[in-house]
């Protein structure tokens, strides 16, 4: 699974961190999300998908591979 965060779109509400805390965190200075891991294991795929669906700024793109 490949995850991409569009930093310019991110509005920093942290819904991704709530949905998948193992995978996402937010920068201290502006709250923009970043990845804690590039390739989350399959046990995390559902919560990453949930994060991408929930993100209110449509800033998370997920490609399965």
């Amino acid at each position, binding site marked *: 699974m490949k995850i991409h965060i569009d930093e310019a779109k991110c*509005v*920093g*509400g*942290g*819904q991704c*961190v*709530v949905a998948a805390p193992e995978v996402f965190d*937010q920068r*201290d200075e*502006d*709250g923009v999300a970043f990845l804690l891991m590039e390739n989350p294991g399959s046990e995390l795929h559902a919560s990453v*998908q949930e994060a991408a*669906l*929930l993100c*209110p*700024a*449509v800033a998370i793109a997920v490609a399965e591979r």
Partner: protein
Amino acid sequence: MTLSRIVVVGASAAGLTAAETLRREGFTGRLTLIGEEQHPPYDRPPLSKQILKGEWQPERIALRPAEALDGLDAEWLLGRKAVSLDVAGRTIELADGVQVPFDGLVVATGVRPRRLPFARELDGVHALRDLEDALKLRDSLRSVPSVVVIGAGFLGAEAAAVARELGCPVSLVDPLSAPMVRQLGGDVASRVASLHRAHGVDVRCDTGVTGFTEDRGRVAGVRLDDGSEIPAEVVLVAIGSVPAVEWLRDSGLPVGDGVLCDEFCEAAPGIVAAGDVASWVHPDHGRIRVEHRMNATEQGMAAARTLLGRRLPFAPVPYFWTDQYDVKIQAYGRPCADADFTVVSGGPDGGPFAGVYGQNGRITAGVTWNMPREARALRAQVIERAPWPRPAAAAANG
């Protein structure tokens, strides 16, 4: 009952999320999305921000790439408006007379801008809800006209900020005591007023609008209830919105301030609603309707699950944000004007801070001003209904 044909009316944030959730959670029947706008689903919050400012082109705000929409395996009826619903006969009629049958229905038609009672068609008077509105307003700001924004809710306040950043002389007029006071309460609202004044906006609160002056079909000024007049080349009317339920009149569906749903987002058997148009019974807050982006997504998911028989009361922690100049305000819960409010960190005037709202000694909502990470921490406190911070703690942090 298993459903074989689900129709979603309103192809935007809530409708698209509902459709995606239906597919993701196993619905394999026929799926149809009906949308009045020509465009595939796009995101609205950037309309009053990056699009209005001219920083982003419209392609940037597509909610999904074309392949993802194709992957939904749905029938798209775009540029088509639903004009009536027959609940018993389970059909929707479109403006061109076509009848669309369904057995499950998602109502996600959002809201439309409220109009001024005296409004007539005048050049230079704008509303802001869809992409066309935003492009038209953006283009009209190119000549750096004088701008009056009527209504200082989050939409009006954001647009005023953008017009100011583009160099326009801007007045922001509202009958209430401060910008966004209904959403944020008096303390934070007065900081929003100071922010706009510091950027040179002429903020006129406690002031109503009684009419326009015009010059050959074009707006020339805005008349205020104190008898004065502000000259204006461009006027934005941002006085709130009304749910887009006109097509449901006479349908038998319960309609009031929006589509009236139960706690599962259901309005009638097999008929659910989501997003700005949906009023539902929140287990903690009672009957509410929420016009924020996060809710469109969460309620789209919840409503789809209800249709599929996975019924859970919809009990989100409401969230919204707004961007004005270099300030991002974020709020969790339902801040309200008559709740207690205290700053819990930061706070010197104009600088970043976090604050909480409460009632009966419990935290019910939180707000941050350029402190996004704290917003998430406050969310947890809102969920727990954490005890009200003791004055000492509040003071030590503040």
